[in-house]
């Protein structure tokens, strides 16, 4: 006879319970109060049989009978009750027993509870049901659960907890997606581009987090409606204001204050959302700062406004605006080569605007028209003395795009449209209209037009096989007015003599590039819960950020492709496997990819980029390749949720020009600054009750590469290192653990005003993670130094509130 061990243990347990209840029955005689109730399924209302009720954390307890009923006799006093059942989220509570006590409990089916993980269910659906590959959807609600550095909810940092997303280190001015450079990511907030995603030189992300609904990161498999960058698309969507209910929420943190409100103006038709963030702490410099920092100021703001109007069922119109600003003031010498100034001010920010019109022609045909205007301006100025400096640059973007979404049959879903993008770049002006000893400079403005037509179709060939195929065609025009410098042929531009110039009048085409960008992804379902996918796409990039620094400065200049600077073109293939387990509670995935990029931009040794009218002489172009594998295990629901991922990734470059000056690292392949082969990311969220949640994030990365000397030389009694190849060694490995504890609604009363506290520790065990290694000479030779950032645990406390 077979004995089911489970039923055996259940029997023993029942026997035990019987003994206990007998004991309690006996005890009843001395009038112990009775705790009783019914345990049901929260969704169906069905009684739950065999749910275990444990008291004061003891292993023993009672279980519910066939009608979900339980009872226990307890002494007077406080007692902690835990109710658990397989497949249900445990319930815990504390009651004070004075007399008989009735407690009915509803348990939530884990498979039906809302997710706790920042990667949303949309993502699971996409992973299993659609052919999209390399796309991650994040919910802002989930991002808010991640431990935030200094209490600032941070999108750029949160993204780095995902496989395939990294950066050069703390304080980097953007992210590197699957081996791509920072400027190879297109970041959109409601279709308006973000040119600098950070505040305070890379310390915090821009974006008013309260205004954001969700974001999608396309690490590959980019649909044909997106284009213009070679690595990734980060599509951030702002929330639509609630048309029915007023809402107010905000937060107070050590760095900034936030406030968001949604106001319905005409019920069900017109509403407005305003969200702002303001840093305010810089007055502390004045009060507490050391004498030499007392005049320092550092402020940033974000403001997002969205007006949503739905005149009827078939039309919706929305206006989005996003403004960001950073301001600094520092007592010091200014950086413009050797120009003396006492105090420098620094100002930069975005002004982004978009208008959307959505229209349903029929339930099967939807049209979306969007118009965008956005500018990013930077200004560096030193107003004092005779050496006044006023340095400005800007990049402007205008876009008109119309997309039609058409679903003719069950098996086809089509998307097509056209897009017109215009860039206007002012690469640098110095002292225009200012009297100063420092002479004025006005670099020629650059402008371009990108005309694109795109179409893709998702075709369900069979129950198991779906293919999404698309094509994007882009024609790029660098437009006048512009004057191109002509150099003697056959010599590197850096040394070639200028033989003349060619002037183009306004609107004339200076240079044109273009081509087709095929996009394809395929899904093959190997079972109900698992799929195999393949993707290929080509992307072109006609605008680049010029920066030779480890991470670009907010003031770095942008450059439009021209006769000398060829557009970047990338070809990307990837293969993925996805499987969900236990009713989608668990998900495992494995993805591999390979990307080859032509015409990546590098720089001559000692390149001078600022205010250089012949910038082409400082640039080198070459090839980039990136490849990797990402493994991820996700648990989406339950008391414990989170993920664990391992990524192997490489990002290499080769600059192999004709002459020695046009080569980097002798023309060999060399690792990029963000080439970190091994990455482990862990995120764990524990939510024992509605009132408390705990989160941990852990990150491990191979140390990033740096250039290590092969020896030293001496010139004029000074010692210098000899570097022969780029990035030939690595800094120590990086790892960090963060923790946060959120207490929701501490008063535990249901009321319109709901507060919560978040306590965060960044870099919990205080690891001194290196950022770079560099060398200085001393008497005996060279001494190596390690530069670390955030080398100590950082504690912060934030108060958030909601008013509904």
């Amino acid at each position: 006879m077979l004995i089911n061990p489970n039923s055996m243990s259940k029997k023993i347990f029942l026997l035990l319970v019987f003994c206990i209840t007998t004991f309690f029955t006996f005890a009843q005689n001395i009038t112990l109060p009775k705790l009783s109730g019914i345990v049901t399924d929260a969704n169906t209302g069905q009684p739950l049989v065999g749910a275990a009720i444990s008291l004061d954390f003891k292993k023993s307890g009672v279980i519910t009978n066939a009608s979900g009923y339980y009872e226990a006799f307890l002494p007077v006093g406080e007692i902690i009750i835990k109710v658990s059942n397989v497949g249900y989220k445990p319930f815990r509570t504390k009651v004070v027993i004075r007399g008989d006590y009735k407690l009915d409990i509803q348990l939530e089916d884990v498979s039906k509870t809302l997710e706790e993980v920042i990667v949303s269910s949309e993502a699971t659906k996409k992973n299993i049901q659609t052919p999209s590959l390399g796309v991650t959807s994040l919910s802002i609600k989930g991002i808010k659960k991640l431990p935030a550095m200094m209490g600032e909810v941070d999108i750029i940092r949160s993204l780095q907890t995902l496989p395939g997303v990294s950066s050069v280190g703390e304080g980097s001015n953007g992210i590197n997606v699957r081996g791509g450079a920072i400027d190879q990511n297109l970041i959109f907030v409601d279709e308006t581009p973000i040119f600098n995603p950070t505040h305070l030189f890379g310390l915090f992300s821009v974006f008013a987090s309260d205004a954001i609904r969700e974001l999608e990161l396309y690490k590959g498999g980019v649909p044909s409606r997106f284009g213009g960058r070679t690595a990734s698309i980060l599509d951030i969507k702002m929330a639509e204001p609630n048309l029915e209910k007023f809402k107010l929420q905000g937060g107070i943190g050590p760095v900034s204050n936030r406030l968001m409100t949604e106001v319905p103006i005409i019920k069900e038709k017109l509403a407005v959302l305003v969200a702002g963030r303001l840093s305010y702490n810089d007055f502390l410099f004045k009060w507490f700062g050391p004498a030499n920092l007392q005049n320092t100021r550092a402020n940033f703001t974000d403001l997002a406004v969205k007006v949503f109007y739905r005149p009827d069922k078939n039309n919706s119109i929305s206006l989005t605006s996003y403004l960001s600003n950073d301001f600094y003031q520092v007592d010091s010498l200014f950086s413009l080569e050797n120009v003396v100034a006492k105090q420098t001010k620094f100002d930069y920010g975005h002004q982004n605007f978009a208008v959307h019109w959505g229209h349903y022609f029929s339930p099967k045909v939807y049209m979306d028209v969007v118009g965008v205007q956005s500018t990013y301006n930077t200004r560096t100025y030193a107003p004092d003395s005779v050496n006044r400096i006023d340095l400005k640059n800007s990049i402007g973007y205008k876009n008109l795009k119309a997309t039609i979404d058409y679903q003719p049959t069950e098996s086809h879903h089509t998307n097509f449209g056209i897009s017109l993008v215009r860039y206007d770049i002012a690469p640098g002006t110095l002292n225009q209209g200012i009297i100063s000893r420092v002479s004025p400079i006005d670099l020629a403005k650059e402008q371009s037009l990108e005309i694109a037509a795109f179409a893709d179709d998702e075709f369900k060939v069979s129950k198991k096989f779906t293919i999404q195929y698309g094509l994007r065609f882009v024609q790029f025009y660098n437009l006048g007015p512009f004057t191109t410098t002509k150099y003697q042929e056959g010599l590197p531009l850096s040394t070639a003599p200028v033989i003349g110039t060619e002037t183009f009048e306004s609107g004339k085409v200076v240079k044109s590039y273009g081509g087709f960008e095929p996009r394809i992804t395929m899904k093959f379902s190997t079972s109900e819960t698992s799929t195999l996918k393949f993707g290929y796409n080509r992307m072109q990039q006609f605008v680049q950020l010029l920066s030779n620094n480890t991470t670009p400065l907010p003031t770095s200049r942008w450059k439009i492709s021209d006769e000398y600077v060829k557009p970047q073109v990338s070809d990307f293939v990837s293969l993925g496997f996805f499987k969900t387990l236990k009713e989608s509670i668990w998900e495992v995935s494995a993805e591999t990819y390979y990307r080859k990029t032509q015409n990546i931009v590098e720089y001559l040794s000692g390149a001078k980029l600022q205010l250089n009218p012949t910038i082409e002489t400082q640039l080198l172009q070459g090839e980039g390749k990136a490849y990797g594998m990402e493994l991820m295990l996700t648990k989406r629901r339950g008391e414990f949720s989170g993920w664990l991922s391992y990524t192997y990734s490489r990002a290499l470059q080769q600059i192999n020009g004709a002459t020695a000056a046009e080569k980097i690292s002798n023309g060999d392949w060399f690792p990029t600054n963000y080439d970190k082969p091994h990455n482990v990311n862990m995120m764990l969220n524990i939510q024992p009750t509605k009132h408390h949640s705990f989160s941990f994030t852990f990150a491990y990365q191979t140390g990033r590469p740096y250039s290590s000397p092969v020896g030293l030389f001496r010139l004029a009694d000074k010692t210098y290192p000899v570097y022969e190849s780029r990035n030939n060694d690595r800094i120590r490995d990086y790892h960090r653990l963060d923790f946060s504890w959120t207490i929701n609604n501490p008063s535990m009363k249901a009321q319109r005003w709901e507060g919560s506290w978040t306590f965060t520790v960044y870099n919990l065990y205080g690891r001194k993670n290196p950022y770079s290694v560099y060398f200085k000479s001393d008497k005996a030779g060279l001494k190596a130094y390690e530069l670390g950032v955030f080398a100590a645990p950082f504690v912060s406390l934030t108060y958030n509130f909601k008013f509904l």
Partner: protein
Amino acid sequence: MKKEILIYFGTKYIMSQNFSPVDMGLNRLKMLPSQQERGWGRGFNKQNWTYDIKYILSIYFTAIIGLMTSCITPISDFPQITSRSFLTIETALTDQTEVNYVKMTYSSSSIKINFIRPVKKAKVYVVDEKGVRENFIESSLATQEGTYFPSPNFKGKIGSTYTLTIETADGKKYVSQAETMPTVPEIQEPTTQFEAKTNYDVTDVSRVGFNVYINLQDSPKKGEYYKWYWKHYEKIAFCHTCTNGKFNFKLGSCVVIDPPAPNGGDIETVPTYNYYCDGQCWNITTGLDINILADTYINGELVSGKKIARIPYDGKNPYYFRLEQRAITKTAFEYQQGIVEQLQNSGTLFDVPAETRFNTNIKSLTNPEDKVLGIFNVYSFKKQILYIKRDKGVPIQEKPVPIIYTGEIFSCSGFDPTCIDRTPCEESSNRTKIKPEGWVD
């Protein structure tokens, strides 16, 4: 380990200040020995408590607001992964007779300095645009091996163009690009100003000093490049200081005396001995940083108050200061600019890639792949010798931070006739027995 606060701006960092523990207040939170003596009861003393809160807050927001709390740690056992040595050519061809030379070395394949070797017995000459050739002959002095000098009366001419040729003993030939000697303006109005950097500790020599400023009138001609170079001579009394040992005259250096055997009676501690010089001797100090300027933004203008040096306040006596204002070539400017950006400004979040420029303006004729370090440097200069007064313009509370000698003065005791108590002044790049120009005792 030192705590550093860095603020970044423009294309390079503009401020880097070393906060001593006292300034940062960081170590106040740790137990310093002096605090341990006083006990850690400060938090309960109301007056001091506010003081500590102030410090905590200041640390906290300093870290927050745009300033990255960075931490710099020296790596004590740095492992070098690859080693290479290259021909290094250092040159000076000027409009004056006193500074003209070609110095050739093989660079060190280790990051330790003592692996640099001189390149001897080479044939070195420069040719001007008229084809006039000047041979550079290797010095016969042992301390100047691998250094080649022209005839004593040779000097370059402003506006002339020169080409350098080197033929090494192993048959390799190197030729430079033609370089034209630029014109240099006069040094104008050198001035000094006392400045105390309050973020340094009062005992730190970096805290107090005098900044030296000059004015520069740039000519209307575009594309002019300047460099400032200074030297300081300090007359010294002691030529050697030996710790745990004595001076060995045969070796010409200090020799550590082995401590007596543990069972050999009294343990004798060897004191630190300072040896007087056997004649006049000067230590030479040069400016640490490369100080260069291009007229890109200031063409034709008067640049006023250009800081060209900072000298220490280690005494109140006048400070001998020999300043050179040089007009350098574009090649030399770009070469040094690269060094400034990569090395002088390294250790920030925004470093540019560390690279070394090879074959800047000297190339191998025998093997084009051959890599050469250094530069053919043609410049003209003006010089001024100043005695900077250090007893005026100093706030009353600021005191000089003198160099303190420790240990004993070595002297021969009585009757040993072989004993010598004075050591020689060895000629080197940072020491000389030749009386400097314009020296006033």
